[in-house]
């Protein structure tokens, strides 16, 4: 990935071609496979639950019409869950890929650097003070403000092209602070149940969310996706260094602002509904990066799709792990993600030597 300047009338596309290591499979094939997996997991998610419902019943209740018990279960309980697993997962995968592209840092991930943690804090404040009960939109907005503060703080603390260590340390600090304040806010609630909900916020879950959560979060997430997905070319150009990117006509300030705001919108709205689901934004982009020839631009879309696949699969798996209150989703993603994180650190150490 050594930057080369080349004279051309359409520089960006040429650079992309030069930069590209040979991907093993075609981009559209990869997108197709991931999309197919999402559809498959969507239906699997509708079929998985304590009440057994046949595939035929699922299809007929999706078509709507009859108001039966099965219809209520599918439409009001399982459908929002299946949708949120896809949208929250896509958000985390996409935000991970975008942050890694912008910060030029393989460990930039919404959970690791504290963006999810601060989003949870913002949502917790809105929810437990009762503000979101009066004004529902306050819940995702609280998450977005929290996420925004975190991204700006991380940017201020670590900066662009900082060392991997600085970024991770800044993330540890922001995360610890957010977790402490979240715990404090929950402990201060007079409702004894609130203190137990620390598990929900720090480990994430999609159990028993409703369609109103979908309506609240989806538009804001989509807005964030649009901002992030349109950053492809800018992120490609950034791999050549800031000066080159600037000479190619990209306004660095605007690029930074757009990634920061896009991340805050999508991650803030997602975490406000699901709690913190860690490591998705780390694992997915890393697995997919070689498959798109190490191009940050192409990585955005496939990471979003891959995040949806991983989160949907994990959210189906948690329903079968134990009886009673189900396992928190973040536990499963951390079980997958943390060893992966360690593996990445070893890789980075090898490269540094």
């Amino acid at each position: 990935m050594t930057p080369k300047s080349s004279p051309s009338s359409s520089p960006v596309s040429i650079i992309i071609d030069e930069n590209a290591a040979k991907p093993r499979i075609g981009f559209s094939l990869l997108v197709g496979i991931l999309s197919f997996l999402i559809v498959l997991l969507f239906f699997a998610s509708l079929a998985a639950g304590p009440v057994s419902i046949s595939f035929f019943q699922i299809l007929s209740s999706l078509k709507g019409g009859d108001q039966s018990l099965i219809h209520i279960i599918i439409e009001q309980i399982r459908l929002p869950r299946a949708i949120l697993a896809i949208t929250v997962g896509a958000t985390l995968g996409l935000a991970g890929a975008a942050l890694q592209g912008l910060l030029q840092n393989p460990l930039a991930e919404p959970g690791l650097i504290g963006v999810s943690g601060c989003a949870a804090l913002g949502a917790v404040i809105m929810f437990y003070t009762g503000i979101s009960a009066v004004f529902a939109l306050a819940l995702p907005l609280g998450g977005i403000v929290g996420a925004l503060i975190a991204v700006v703080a991380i940017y201020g603390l670590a900066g662009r092209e900082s060392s991997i260590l600085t970024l991770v340390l800044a993330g540890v600090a922001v995360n610890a602070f957010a977790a402490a304040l979240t715990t404090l806010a929950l402990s201060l609630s007079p409702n004894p149940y609130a203190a137990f909900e620390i598990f929900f916020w720090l480990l994430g879950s999609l159990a028993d969310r409703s369609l109103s959560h979908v309506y609240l979060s989806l538009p804001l997430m989509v807005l964030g996706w649009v901002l992030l997905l349109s950053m492809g070319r800018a992120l490609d150009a950034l791999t050549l260094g800031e000066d080159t990117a600037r000479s190619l006509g990209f306004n660095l300030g605007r690029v930074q602002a757009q990634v920061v705001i896009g991340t805050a919108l999508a991650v803030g709205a997602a975490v406000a509904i699901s709690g913190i689901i860690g490591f998705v934004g780390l694992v997915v982009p890393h697995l997919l990066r070689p498959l798109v020839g190490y191009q940050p631009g192409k990585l955005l879309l496939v990471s979003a799709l891959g995040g949806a696949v991983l989160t949907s699969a994990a959210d189906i798996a948690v329903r079968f792990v134990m009886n009673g209150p189900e396992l928190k989703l973040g536990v499963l993603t951390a079980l997958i993600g943390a060893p992966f994180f360690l593996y990445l650190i070893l890789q980075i150490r090898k490269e540094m030597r």
Partner: protein
Amino acid sequence: MVKAFRFCCLAISMAFAAPALNAAEKPQRIASLNVCTDQLVLALAQRSRIASITFLAVNPDTSYYHQQAQNIPINYGTAEEILGIKPDLIVAGSYTTPATTALLRKLGHRVELFAPDDSLKQMRTNIKRMASLLGEVQKGQQLIRDMDIRLAGVAQTGRKPVAVIFRANGFTMGRHSLINDILTIAGFRHLSAEMSMARAGFLPLEKMIAADPALIIFGKYKPEHPSIAHQLLEHPALSMLLALRASGKKRDSIVIPSNLWNCGGPFIVEAVEKLAQKRKALLKAEVSP
């Protein structure tokens, strides 16, 4: 060392416990360490004899006799608080404050433990035992008699609709619970018991909807302070289920204040009567839709 400790215990027990024995049947400084023993003490003993009750006894969410409990010194279940008030009888739950009660016994106090009221039978046993400990045997008999008269007035004939209790987080009570007996005596079938849940557990929302009970009894605790646990009770799937009009079946919901049946006591009659009334309305609505 052990000897010295024993001697110490003996000395303390003589200092504290001896007056209790001398005062014959009626203890004069009663301390209660559990919200359910609070209820029985408040129902049976004169106020002047109650030296300490738990902080939950003054809370209307958890205690039926919260008004009678005002201005009685409260404790948080620690040994220090209890030692300070020099009680001659300590009543406590058999599970709730094991470390405290063990310590108080070691120090020579008379501690009487009460099993949780997990059935109407256990509740009667507890009332009788508490009455005799407090030297109020007659009052205890009177309480049970009054209760039985009112319970006998609750009609049980006719169809038995299915009811379920659904608390924050989907927590529900099983076959071996006071609530199970209360539902049965009010003329209901109990969903969780029929799902062979033993004592208590979590009922997944969709499983409850598939079972389609006629009556959902919501249990809330401080719902004015938001929690995700209570958000479940407002899930749109529940209101859709209750609004369902298929096959002429009538469905309804009710909130029974938790202080009416979390503990056993004369007040459970109120819970039974509220439920029996609801059942009457349900059956009537099914006959003439």
